[in-house]
Structure formats: C-alpha cells, structure tokens
C-alpha cells in the first residue's frame, strides 16, 4: 500500500476535524451525558437533580421485570438474526442463478429495506390486527382459532420477529448477493468436476467463503434487533401483552419518555451502550481475523 505523506503537520488533523467534531457532538457528548444522568434522580423539568450513585442500576438489577426484558431482548434478537440470515442466504442463492428478469427480481427483494421500522410496523398491523387485519379475517373462514395476540404473548413475539426479519431482509440479501458474486466461479466449477452436487458445493465451498459476510451481518443484525426495532414494537405491540415483547430499548424509552424517570432511563441506556460495545468489540476481534480461509 502506498503511504501518503503530508508535508504540513496540521493538514491531516484539519481534514479529520469535521468528522471528529460530528462524532464528539452527536455521539460522545450525549453518551457521556447519559452516563452522568444515570447517577442521578432527576426531575422532568430539571429543577431537582439528586445524586444517587449507582442506585438506579441497583433498582434495575433487582427488578425481575428488567431481567425478563433482557432475556426477551436476546431471544428476539437471536431469532431475528438467525431466521433473517438463513432466509436471506437461501433467497440470495436462488437470485444468484441466471434467470430472466433478474434485475427486477433483485430490486423487488431489496425493497423492504427502504421502509422505516415504524411504517413497517403499521403495514404489519394492517395485515395482522385481530379486528381489522386482513389475515385474521381470512383465517376466520377456515378455522375458529382466535388470532388475538393482544393476549397471546408468543403470537405477538412471533409477529414482531417476522416483521423485523422482513424489514431487514433486503439489506441482508444485498450483502449475500455481493458475497456470492465475489466467489470465483472456477472454484465451484472445479468442485463440480470432482463430482460434488449443489448441496455439497454449498456447504463445502460457498458457505465457508461467505463466512466473513455472515459474521458481519450477524453483528449488524444483532445491533439492529437490539436498537432499531423500537419503532416496530411501538407501533405493533407497545411491549405487550403483559411484558412479552418489552425489549430493553423499548423499556428505556417508556420509562424515560412516558414515565419521565430520566435517571432511571439513562441507566438503562448505559446498560444498552455496554451491550453494543460488546457486540462491536466482537465484530472487530473476530471479523478482523477473517474467520476462515
């Protein structure tokens, strides 16, 4: 690699300054402010600010509902990621074949990614809503099963998993398609000549070669499921029934913005921040090693 040398000592700093400034103002400052706020009991309008040390964290960790919310978050993220990636890989393999109208087909598959989570939620609500949804209506003709996920936790959970998978699908597909196309066709042809069938070729060659992409998407989808699904949960289930779909980011929002318990909510954001740091550290540590080959 060619090394660029700047004559002026300050020019490189000046060039990165805007990026650094944006990062500091929009990321570090709010993040540090949350850490500070998490140590206080703060009144909504800001007239009372009582230092409480780690009491907010103690209150959280002692709360069985919060621990349940953490489990819910991991279950949700796990299913969103695993189901999402498996499906995207399957369809990417199919879309990678030489068929007519491939461009249109691919564009359509990429579509959902362009939709905001809250809007995606509303679309799914119109399909699945127990009283005005299309699907429960159609189901009512064939079965007496009551599709009321207002009271059935696992149905509500399945619903938001499916919606999140659908929402993130285009993104995953785009990466898998690119990954598939980067695989040298000669490698696969050589395997064919050696007598490996399509399934064998996929598991012995394609899948291992795709592992860096898979790992990247895994971290990315975990992060998406943990943080970006707020709009989806808010528009579809509001965390219910009971607290069946109350994932951590939704709880933090609810306690902060609806309950106006700012310090308590900040403590939850700090915990979430630690989770995302862990995920990112994993990404750097393993993805840098290129996983296989």
């Amino acid at each position, binding site marked *: 690699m060619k090394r660029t040398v700047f004559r002026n000592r300050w020019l490189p700093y000046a060039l990165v300054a805007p990026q650094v400034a944006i990062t500091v103002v929009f990321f570090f400052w709010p993040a540090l402010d949350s850490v500070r706020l998490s140590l206080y*009991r703060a009144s909504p*309008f800001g007239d009372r600010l009582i230092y409480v040390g780690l009491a907010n964290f103690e209150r959280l960790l002692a709360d069985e509902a919060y621990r349940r919310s953490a489990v819910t978050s991991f279950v949700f993220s796990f299913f969103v990621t695993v189901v999402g990636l498996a499906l995207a890989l399957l369809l990417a393999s199919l879309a990678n074949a030489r068929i007519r109208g491939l461009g249109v087909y691919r564009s359509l598959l990429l579509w959902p990614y362009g939709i905001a989570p809250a809007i995606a939620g509303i679309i799914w609500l119109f399909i699945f809503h127990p009283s005005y949804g299309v699907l429960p209506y159609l189901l009512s003709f064939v079965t007496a099963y009551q599709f009321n996920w*207002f009271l059935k*936790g696992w149905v509500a959970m399945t619903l938001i998993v499916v919606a999140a998978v659908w929402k993130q699908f285009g993104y995953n597909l785009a990466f898998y398609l690119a990954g598939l196309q980067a695989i040298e066709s000669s490698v696969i042809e050589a395997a064919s000549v050696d007598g490996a069938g399509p399934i064998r070729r996929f598991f012995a060659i394609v899948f291992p070669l795709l592992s860096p992409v898979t790992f990247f998407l895994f971290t990315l989808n975990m992060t998406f499921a943990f943080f970006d699904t707020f709009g989806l949960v808010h528009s579809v289930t509001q965390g*219910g*029934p009971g607290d069946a779909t109350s994932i951590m980011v939704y709880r933090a929002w609810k306690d902060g913005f609806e*309950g*106006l*318990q700012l310090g308590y909510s900040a403590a939850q954001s700090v915990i979430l921040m630690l989770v995302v740091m862990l995920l990112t550290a994993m990404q750097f540590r393993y993805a840098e090693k290129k996983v296989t080959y």
Partner: protein
Amino acid sequence: MKAFVMRSAALAALVLTVSASPALAKTDIQWWHAMQGVLGERVNEIATKFNASQNDYEVKPVFKGSYPETLNAAVAAYRAKQPPHVVQVFEAGTQTMLSSGAVYPVHQLLKDNGVSVDWNDLIGPVKSYYSTGGNLASMAFNSSTPILYYNKDLFKKAGLPDKPPATWNEVESMAKKLVAAGAKCGYSTAWPSWVLMENMHALHDQPFADHSNGFDGLATTLKINGAFGVKMMELIARGGREGWFTYNGRLSKAEANMGGGECGIFTTSSAYIAGLTRASEGKFAWGTGPLPKMTGYPQGNSVIGGATLWVMKGAKPEEYKGVAQFFKYLASTENQAWWAGVTGYLPLTNTAVKAMEASGHYAKHPHQKTSVTQMMAGKTTPNSQGTRLGNFVSVRDAIEEQMENILSGKKTAKQGLDDAVAKSNDVLKEFAALYK
C-alpha cells in the same frame, strides 16, 4: 386530498400572517396541544374565533402528538428555555406539573392581569381535581369522564330492550345474549386502567391510593389489590374466559372496535361521542348510559380525565396578559357551551350546563347529557375527587400490563394486582424521593 387541503390552508394562513403583520404587530401566544382528528379541528376553531375577537393577540395552536409526546415536548422546550406559553397536559401529568416548579398557576396569572373568573361556578369534580388549596392551578379545558355506550342495532338483533345496562350483572347477562346472537364482542372497554380500575374504585367509593389518592400528600402506595379491585378484575377475567368480554388493547385502541360496529356494550371517555358520531354515520345507531355499578357498595363518583391548560414560566408580562385574555374567552359561557356541544367533553361551569339545557341542546343530543348527569348524581368523597399520582403514566402502564397477564390467564386477579401494586409503589416512591 387531505394533505393538499392542509397545505393550502397552511399557505393561506401564511399569506394572511405575512400580509397582516406589518399593519398590526400582534403578540403571539403559543398553545401546544394533543388534540387530533375532529378534536384538533375544534381546537383550531377556538383559536380562530379568539383571534378574530380582538386585535392584540394571536393564539397559535400547535399539535404536538399524543398526550405524553406533548408533555415531553414541553419538558424539552422548558429545559432549552423556549417553553410555549400554554401547554395542554393530560390529567395523569397533573402531579408532575404541580411539583415541577415550572408553571405559573392560573389563579395567580388571572389575578396579576386583572381578569376575574367566578371559580365557584366550576362544576365540582373539575374544581377539586385541578385546585390546590381552593385555587385553580391550571385552566380547566377538556374534561371527560367515562360513560357506557351501546350499539342499538346489535341490541335489537339480540332481542334486548333499547336500554343500557345499569349494573355489572346486567352487563354480563346482556353481553352474553349479544354474543349468542352473533356479535363479535359483547362488552369491551378502552382505557382499561382508567375505566376499570381508577373509575370503578372512585364510583364505588373505594380508595385507589393512599393519602386520599394523592390529594393530601404524595401517594406512595396503591390500594387496588383490595377486595374490590380483585372482585372487579375477577369479573372481567371471567368475562374473557366465557367470551362476553373482549380485550382490545391498551389506551384508546379498543375504540376502533366500537366504531367498527363490533361491540354491543362499550365503556370509554364521554369525549368519544364526537368520534363515534363520525364513525357510525350511516352504519348503526347507538345510545349511552351511566357507568355500570356493582351492587352492595356505597355511592362515590366517576373521576374526570382529559386535560387542562398549564401556563409555563419564562414568558414576558405582555404575553401573559394575552394568555389571561385567552383564558377569559375560554371560560365564557358561550365558548363552554359550544365546546361541550361539539365534542362531548363536560361543560366546565354550572352556568354553561344551564345554558345548554335552556337552548334545548340536551333534548336534541341526549347522550351528551349522560356524563353530566352521572357526575352530578355522584358523591364527592376523598376516594372520588380524583387521582393525583407522580409518574402516573408509568403507574397506568404497570396496571395495564398486569391486567393483560390476568386476562390471558397467566396470573390470578389477586396475583396480577399485587404485582401491579408492587411495581407502582416502586415508581411512586421514586417520585416521592425526588420531592421530599
């Protein structure tokens, strides 16, 4: 189409403001509110009428989203030192506002600006809910109370007389008949916590929280897991199991089911009259009645919900003068009678009630009188004057969460309510610790 109309209206408003501003330098008054749909249109009408009535002030209503969103916007704006002059805060935010130190009490504002309003004319429940020490802290605006609605078409189909159920026993027997006759939902309710817990406790003179529901000191303990609360929840849970009660979600979500003509019997805010009138137009007939009672309990009263207008600190004296004038306009009998007439909210003064009676409005719209009659028939006791809790939204949320666990059969009524109380007490103690 709607977007186009809105844009044209906005453009017209802009042109008008721009062309009018050099001639008369009007003082702007920002009014943040949470009224959407039909109610939002009515709010704009009030501002237009007030603005046309004088030349010094221009009230600008700004829709800020749901009630919690509006409160949040006010919090953020106050912290950024750019608060609106007037913000509409729902009853659940009352204690938060009272404790905040960020408001200019309305009785003080009016006194400072030489506007006199006869507070004794306010109807009792409204005055008791929003006053401290007999003085009004915020300007009463849209107060409602839950009432019962019934679908007359479904009643006819089920062979029921055209009469709303008066007791829970009747709700049960009628709802069963409705379902047997093919109704998709016999009985359902919106605002589950507000209607079934807060109001049912108050209506039967049962305590909801300690310190007289937070009126003589910050409440720290909920009382809903007592015999009455458990009985109420057991009834509803049994209704769910037996199929005559249908759960349709938190907050106002279930209103869509009543409006869609699915439910025979329904309980929600009296302010839903405006929405239901529009939703049912040409589809089905409906009627109203007072909230159903449980036999064997003393008479209390239903509590009010809705919102009031709070004046934020930090504006200029001449702007406050405008706010005082605006409130004087709001309190006028003419405005009160009009507002209650077109929305279903309670008229706030006894004079307005009489004026509506005299003009024949109630004879023409009998269901609008239901809420007034219900409130006047009730008895104000420490348990029924209202509920003032810190972080009330979190408390309601905890209650509705556990109601879902009870209704889905995950917990018994007693267990669920115990858990709701434990969670709520934690929230209440936090609030009390903040203002000790």
